[in-house]
C-alpha cells in the first residue's frame, strides 16, 4: 500500500511544535551558559590548578568527549535515580548537555587561553591591574574572539542534542512534542520532516545572529 502524504494535521499542530521549539532553545541556551562557566573553570583547573584538580578536570573532559552524549544523559537520569536523587527528564537532559558542553568547551578555552600572549598579562599587571581585572579586561575579551566560532558550533550542536531528551521521556521539547503527535497520528514522515525543518531554522537563525554579533564585537 502506498503512503499518501497528509500535511494538514501537521499544520494544525504547528503552534504546539513551535512551543516545543522554544523549550528546545531554552534547554540549549541554559546548557550553553552553564556549560561555559564550568568550561572556563575546567580550563583554568587544567592550566593552573594542582595535580588533583587537573586530574578531576581531565576525567570530566575525557568522559564528555569520548562517550556518546546519549549515554551521558541516560546515566544521569537513571544513575542519579539509583543513588536516590530523582531528577526529572528536563533536568537530566539539561545536566547531560551541560556536562557535554563543558567538556568540549574546556578544550576550546584551553586553546583560547594560549592564543592570548603572556606579554599581554605582563603589560596589564605592570599597570597595577590585579589578576582578576587582568583576566576580565584583557585576557577574556581577546580569548572570546579566538573561541567565538567554536562556541557557535557548540551551541548548534547543543540545540541538536536536545532531541535526545526523548530517550528519558521528555515530552515538552520539539522532539518530545513531535513524538507525542506521531504516536497519536502515525504521520511519522510529515511530523519529523517539519520538526527537522524547525531545527534547521533555529540553528540557522542562531548562526547568522552570531555572525552579525561577531562583526560588531570584533572590529579590531
Amino acid at each position, binding site marked *: 500500500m502506498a503512503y499518501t502524504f497528509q500535511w494538514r494535521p501537521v499544520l494544525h499542530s504547528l503552534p504546539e511544535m513551535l512551543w516545543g521549539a522554544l523549550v528546545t532553545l531554552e534547554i540549549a541556551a541554559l546548557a550553553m551558559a552553564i556549560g561555559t562557566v564550568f568550561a572556563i573553570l575546567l580550563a583554568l583547573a587544567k592550566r593552573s590548578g594542582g595535580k588533583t584538580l587537573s586530574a578531576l578536570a581531565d576525567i570530566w573532559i575525557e568522559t564528555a568527549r569520548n562517550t556518546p552524549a546519549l549515554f551521558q544523559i541516560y546515566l544521569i537520569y537513571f544513575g542519579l535515580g539509583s543513588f536516590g536523587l530523582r531528577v526529572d527528564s528536563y533536568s537530566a537532559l539539561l545536566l547531560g548537555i551541560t556536562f557535554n558542553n563543558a567538556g568540549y568547551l574546556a578544550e576550546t578555552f584551553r586553546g583560547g587561553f594560549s592564543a592570548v600572549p603572556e*606579554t599581554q598579562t605582563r603589560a596589564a*599587571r*605592570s*599597570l597595577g591591574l590585579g589578576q582578576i*581585572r587582568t583576566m576580565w*579586561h*584583557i585576557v577574556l575579551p581577546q580569548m572570546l574572539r579566538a573561541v567565538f566560532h567554536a562556541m557557535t558550533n557548540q551551541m548548534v550542536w547543543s540545540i541538536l542534542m536536545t532531541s535526545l531528551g526523548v530517550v528519558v521521556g521528555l515530552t515538552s521539547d520539539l522532539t518530545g512534542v513531535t513524538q507525542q503527535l506521531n504516536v497519536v497520528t502515525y504521520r511519522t514522515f510529515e511530523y519529523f520532516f517539519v520538526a527537522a525543518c524547525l531545527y534547521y531554522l533555529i540553528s540557522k537563525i542562531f548562526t547568522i545572529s552570531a555572525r552579525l554579533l561577531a562583526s560588531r564585537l570584533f572590529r*579590531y
Partner: protein
Amino acid sequence: MIEIDNVHKHFGTLHVLKGVSLNVKKGEVLSMIGGSGSGKSTMLMCINGLEGIQKGSISVDGIDVHAKATDLNKLRRRIGIVFQQWNAFPHLTVLENVMLAPRKVLGKSKQEAEAIAVQQLGHVGLGEKLRAFPSRLSGGQQQRMAIARALAMSPDYMLFDEVTSALDPQLVGEVLDTLRMLSKEGMTMIVVTHEMRFAREVSDRVAFFCQGQIHELGTPEQIFDSPQKPETADFLRSVL
C-alpha cells in the same frame, strides 16, 4: 629613590644577576647598556616585581619590592614600564588602552580618565589617533601609545626595556624623541638601550652590565670616552 642592594637572580640553573647594587635618585636618568644576556632587562623586571629575586633587596621610596607584605599592584602605580614589544591591548582603541588603568586601578571617573588619556596621547603626538585600534598604528606609534599608557598613571619612575629594539630604523627617532622630552621634564628614568648615542645624550649616569654584574658605572663621559675596564672598552668598540 630606587635602592638595589646585592641582588641575585636565578632562572633555574642560570645565574643571571650576580650581586647587582645601584641607587637611582629622583630626577635621574640612568641608562643600562651591555650585551644581550648580560642581565639588564632582567634587572628592570625585578624593579617592579614582574620577576622575583633570590637574594638581596630592591626598595622603591623605602618600600621593599619583594617583601611578602608589599602590595605590588599599589607599588606598580608609581613605576611605569614600557616593553620592547609594545604590548598594545589589541581589542581596545588607543584611547581605551590609555584610559583602562586610570579607571580600573586609580578609580577615576570616565570623564577624568578620558581627559588624562587625551592629554597624554597629545603629549606623545597621538592626538589624532584616539579612536583607532592599535592594529592601524605603526610600530613607533604603538610604542608611543604604550608610553602614554604608562604615563597616564602619573608614575614617579619610568622603566624602558629596549623600547626601540623591535622598531624599523626609520621609526626609532620618534620614540627616542619622546624619551628625550620626558627626561627634559625631569622624569626619573631607567633606560635599557642599545642606542649608544642616545644613552650618552640623555643619561646622567650609565651602567655597563656584563655577565650579570654592573661592571662599570659612571657619567656618560667616563663610560664612553674613558672606560676603565677592558670589557667596557671591548663592548663599546663592538657597538659604536
